[in-house]
């Protein structure tokens, strides 16, 4: 296990160094991801400025959700880049065969193959928004709330990482990377920026029971912020909900292992 982590870190460092060879392009791309997520924040700000509060949710509450989810999402994108480009650069080219013969876990080799450092722009933007939320909201940070927040953030990370793994796994069959799962990853991020209670019931149910987005984001955050929940969760369910993120990760990882066993090279 320790050897695996050391290998992971080492591969990551190599990927970072190779990215840094193109410094200007890199800085531009950082600016790009910063701007793209800034655009979303401007939209949210404009709506709150026009309409006042969204029920009991003020702009600072939504900023808390927005900042947290953007930080996690950017971190996943940075560290799961290898899975993101898996279909186009490893499967279609037949390069995955070479990965399989190496004496290390394919999951680690794929994960640490590339780093999407340009997502630092989105990360930074999320941090700025979260700082605004922290300053504006007067959250009573008890030990329990801190623990719940950390638990939720880690399970959110597992959740979004798992989607990247599923995306990559599907390319065992489709050879290409499927953009359609962007609706769940990027779309999920967009969805979770607002309280889940504003959406249609069928939509909320899908993002609770099929894809447990609400369990890793909305429910625990309601608990941390101590907000009333029209969906009827209690502090107990809010505290247990993030477990779903880990279960989801485990299911997705076994799907990956299943896919890898079925893998037939493209033969090129």
């Amino acid at each position: 296990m320790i050897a695996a982590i050391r290998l992971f870190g080492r591969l990551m460092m190599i990927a970072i160094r190779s990215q840094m060879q193109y410094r200007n392009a890199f800085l531009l791309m950082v600016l790009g991801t910063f701007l793209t997520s800034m655009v979303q924040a401007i939209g949210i700000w404009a709506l709150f400025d026009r309409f006042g509060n969204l029920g009991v949710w003020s702009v600072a509450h939504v900023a808390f959700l927005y900042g947290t989810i953007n930080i996690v999402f950017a971190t996943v994108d940075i560290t799961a880049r290898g899975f993101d480009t898996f279909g186009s650069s490893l499967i279609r080219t037949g390069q995955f065969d070479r990965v399989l013969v190496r004496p290390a876990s394919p999951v680690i080799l794929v994960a640490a193959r590339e780093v999407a450092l340009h997502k630092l722009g989105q990360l930074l933007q999320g941090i700025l928004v979260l700082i605004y939320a922290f300053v504006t909201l007067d959250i009573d940070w008890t030990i329990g709330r801190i623990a719940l927040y950390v638990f939720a953030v880690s399970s959110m990370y597992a959740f979004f990482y798992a989607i990247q793994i599923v995306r990559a796994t599907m390319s065992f069959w489709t050879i290409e990377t499927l953009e359609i799962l962007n609706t769940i990853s990027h779309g999920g991020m967009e969805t979770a920026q607002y309280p889940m209670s504003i959406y249609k019931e069928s939509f909320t149910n899908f993002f609770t029971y099929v894809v447990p987005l609400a369990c890793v984001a909305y429910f625990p955050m309601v608990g941390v912020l101590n907000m009333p929940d029209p969906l009827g969760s209690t502090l107990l369910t809010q505290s247990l909900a993030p477990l779903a993120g880990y279960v989801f990760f485990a299911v997705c990882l076994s799907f990956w292992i299943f896919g890898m066993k079925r893998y037939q090279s493209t033969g090129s």
Partner: protein
Amino acid sequence: MPSLTTALLRSYTAVVAARFRLLLQYRAAALAGVATQIFWGCIKLMVLGAFYAAAVTTPPMTFTAIVAYVWLGQVLIGLLPWNHDPELQELFTSGGVAYELLRPLDLYWFWFARTLAFRTAPTLLRMVPGIIFATLILPLIGLPEWALPAPASMTHGLMFALSFTVTVMLSCAITILITISMFWLIEARGLSTFMYGVVPVFSGMIVPLPLFPDWMQPFLQYQPFRGLCDVPFRIYSGDIPLSMAGQEIAFQFVWVVILILFGYGLIARARVRLVVQGG
């Protein structure tokens, strides 16, 4: 002279047709794009619907106008000039631009034709399933209040068509400026990145422009990007009354003329001082 004009026209249509055929090959990607746009449209409507439900003062637009604005935006998102034709980018980095200058065609209009194909071909391909979903399927699955309404009247529809034609020209005129910038920058990635932040906000794609704070309205009203979404979409829903529609379309058209003249002038200057890349 007439023979020259027909020759020019024919070569432009040939470029446009070739581009269409090329892009139509990527049907699976287009289908995935459609699904994503529909999903996004639904999220936007739910978010805006929640704000409308919680509104304490009367919003400046009706919700029906919002629904039309959101769906037209989702269906026509490919028209937004936030990127540029990668084939033209390639010309600048490889030095192939020298061949472009040799063609017996006016460079600006030749690139305009290419840009027109680059912008409209994928959009046309994607808009059909999107419109079918927004007009027919949504009422069928019990969400008629989310369905794309018909234009406010026949006349509104005709004015929308007119305004939309100018929108396409406006989008091409902006896109081609990004291309022309490569005469100086060689690489337009930086400018594209910047446009990626600016265009969605100022066109109204992120949030309908009338919903922005009142103090921003005087500025928002006169900037060119408004002609990309806000003007045609609000003419469609009748949020811009017919009495104002002519004026608004004229506003779009003035920006098209300004931007085309600007681009034309830039190309003329660039030809004099061009350094061709490559070896």
